[in-house]
């Protein structure tokens, strides 16, 4: 029981100083919060390293190699550099707002981590019964930081970046919220731990029932985080650095931390809602039965982190592969594609739940009725759900194609022309009229 030892030891140690209530409600949460903030901050530092290494791998080069073995100390060197840089404020900037904006960004990104179930039991800081709503509400505060930063910088590039980001984040928030409703109808709870339990009790990932919802959530999540190919607010080649053009040193690094922490948040929500969270098959049989409670928690935690890593890798992969959208195209995707398909997804999910309840009710089985029972789907029900998920993908595709049929961006391949190859005669110094050759 080695894994159990340190925690009980810590518990006994704390009992010498505090009352049990204080330990339960103040000390342990503080320890958990400290741990998560440190870990995520550490992740942010090493995510930059990972991103540089992964991009280097894709671009046929080595990436950071000089600081430490394989450049492993590069993030630390970068951190020291950023902290010791001058904290420059433009002369006509709105100083207070300029100072406060980065803190809002970081706070909005980190607070959400409180409700994410990284694992079962003590790996959750707090399990709020409105968890999902809390995530959506708090992460949307992040847009405020961007607007304030862009506005207060007194720079046109920053202002344009802020305007773009506010429009982008507000529109994609809608699609993001709507896409989660399908999964919500299955789980019958807003609590994120409840989501995981609903999936665990039925040994299934909601990804299988909600392929469309997952796609919409992922796309709008990437857009929400301002990551490529939706990185318009900071589009380097157009707006220099967008809303943080005028920031330097520590405050700039805060924005950077906020971006990566927000990535962790969105990926964590995607993992929790669609990929079964910390749940993996045989977890109960393997660990809990033998009483290895902490082993069970730690293995679950690792499973969660692996799934998280997979989604974060997807982020990097997309960023280094795709070109950037233009502002109007971005809005088109948000309003003409994602939001309608999210609405279709809701309708189709409701329809499938209704159909299954009707079929199973006829056979006398209660399905998706209460939280305590989990989904309690029969095999036919499961198959029906998967089929309905696939059908909703097809239906959405058809409907969207019909809606967007006339738009310029819809059928680009038919618009593209191939070039002609002409073998000109030599020594004819006259411009051939257009289209004659």
């Amino acid at each position: 029981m080695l894994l159990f030892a340190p925690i009980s030891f810590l518990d006994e140690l704390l009992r010498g100083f505090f009352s049990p209530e204080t330990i339960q409600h103040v000390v342990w949460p503080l320890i958990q919060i400290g741990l998560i903030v440190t870990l995520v901050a550490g992740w942010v530092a090493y995510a930059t390293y990972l991103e540089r290494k992964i991009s280097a791998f894709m671009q046929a080069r080595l990436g950071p190699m000089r600081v430490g073995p394989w450049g492993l100390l590069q993030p630390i060197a970068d951190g020291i550099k950023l902290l010791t840089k001058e904290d420059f404020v433009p002369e006509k900037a709105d100083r207070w707002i300029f100072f406060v904006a980065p803190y809002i960004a970081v706070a909005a990104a980190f607070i959400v981590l409180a409700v994410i179930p990284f694992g079962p039991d003590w790996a959750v800081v707090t399990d709020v019964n409105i968890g999902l709503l809390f995530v959506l509400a708090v992460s949307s505060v992040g847009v405020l930081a961007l607007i304030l930063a862009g506005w207060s910088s007194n720079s046109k590039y920053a202002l344009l970046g802020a305007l773009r980001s506010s429009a982008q984040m507000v529109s994609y928030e809608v699609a993001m919220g709507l896409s989660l409703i399908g999964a919500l109808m299955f789980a019958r709870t807003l609590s994120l731990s409840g989501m995981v339990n609903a999936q665990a009790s039925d040994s299934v990932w909601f990804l299988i029932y909600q392929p469309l919802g997952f796609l919409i959530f992922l796309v709008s999540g990437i857009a929400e985080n301002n990551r490529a190919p939706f990185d318009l607010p900071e589009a380097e080649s157009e707006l220099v650095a967008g809303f943080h053009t005028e920031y330097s040193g520590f405050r700039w690094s805060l924005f950077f931390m906020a971006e990566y922490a927000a990535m962790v948040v969105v990926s964590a929500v995607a993992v929790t809602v669609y990929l079964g969270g910390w749940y993996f098959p045989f977890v109960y049989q393997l660990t809990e039965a033998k009483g290895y409670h902490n082993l069970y928690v730690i293995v679950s935690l690792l499973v969660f982190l692996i799934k998280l890593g997979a989604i974060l890798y997807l982020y990097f992969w997309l960023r280094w592969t795709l070109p950037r959208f233009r502002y109007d195209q971005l809005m088109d995707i948000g309003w003409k594609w994602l939001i309608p398909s999210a609405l279709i997804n809701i309708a189709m999910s409701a329809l499938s739940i209704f159909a299954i309840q009707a079929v199973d009710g006829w056979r006398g089985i209660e399905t998706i009725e209460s939280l305590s029972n989990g989904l309690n789907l029969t095999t036919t029900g499961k198959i029906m759900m998967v089929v309905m998920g696939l059908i909703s993908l097809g239906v959405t595709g058809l409907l969207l194609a019909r809606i967007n049929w006339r738009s310029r961006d819809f059928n680009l391949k038919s618009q593209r022309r191939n070039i002609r190859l002409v073998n000109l005669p030599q020594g004819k110094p006259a411009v051939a009229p257009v289209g004659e050759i």
Partner: protein
Amino acid sequence: MHQVEIATTQDTLLDSPEMVLNMGPQHPSTHGVLRVILKLDGETVIDLDCDIGYLHRGMEKIAENRMYTMIAPYWDRLDYIAAVSNGLVWVETVEQMMGLAVPPRAHYIRTILTELNRIASHLLWLATHALDIGAVTVLLWALREREEILKIFERQFGARLTCHAWRVGGMPNDAYDDFESDVRQFTGNFPKRLDEYETVLSENRIWLSRTVGIGVISGEDAVAIGLSGPALRGSGVAWDIRKARPYAAYADMEFDIPLGENGDTYDRYLVRLEEMRQSRRIIDQAMDKLPDGPVNAKLPKIVKPPVGDYYHSIEGPKGEIGCYLVSDGTAQPWRVRVRPPSLINLQALKQLCLGHLVADVVAIIGTLDIVLGEIDR
């Protein structure tokens, strides 16, 4: 150059005056020190003006005070991405004015190396153009191929970027020992790599939506503005100086001219990619036919073209690089004038950009393939 008018009156509270945005001279994607003054309504460009001259070095004036053979290294600094082509237009102008017969081997090696330079220039264009539109990985892939060419240049000329490639009357020295195997190795690998870039970009939805129908210019307008090079051929005008007035060894080469149809950014992209393939074809042919013999003509001690004026132009990677030379019979030119393709191509910027968004301005500057060293001279 007209001034951008700024609306200063604000009638009502909800009135939205235009914003004037200074893009450059320090900006990541104006390809140097170009300053573009944009008048924006939201993000739509309603007026535009270019401010150039930040890199003016007085090349043409300097040339008036140098001997004919001393001017060539300055020419490398015009379009520093295509130094070999720039050098060629200068030495050929002087040679043709003097009536020098350059040995055929020199002509062939010149053809090979200028075509390599065309590929290098187009690769750098592809890299930066893709970067402007946000595809970062293509940048490093294209630079990887360009590196191979620069290695050949380094071994041949001793320099990678501003290689003082030619001398009046031929070449400073013959091709180095492994020249043929190096070039063959490059041309062997190159088409595969080019196809690789096409898989990332040509069929990519985002790439298509960013380039198809953006910055359209008709063939008539392109001719009226005086566009040349791929920017002109993208609009479907069949004009290539390598065919119209063959120089170096181009008369012996078999190659096709790619022509676009719509005259948009995507067509210019395709035209440049195809040009790289054709360049490779030319290099392979020239390599097969490479004659033996000397690489230098016999020159007088001091190069003195006869009294008169002469214009010669070649098809550079960016368009027609011309050189107008007036000689008064002394050892220094009386007047030199360059026809820089980038400067003239840049004149189309306003027409191409009006009505598009800021993001498209960046893409259009990229598609015109300008080099500020040549614009400002």
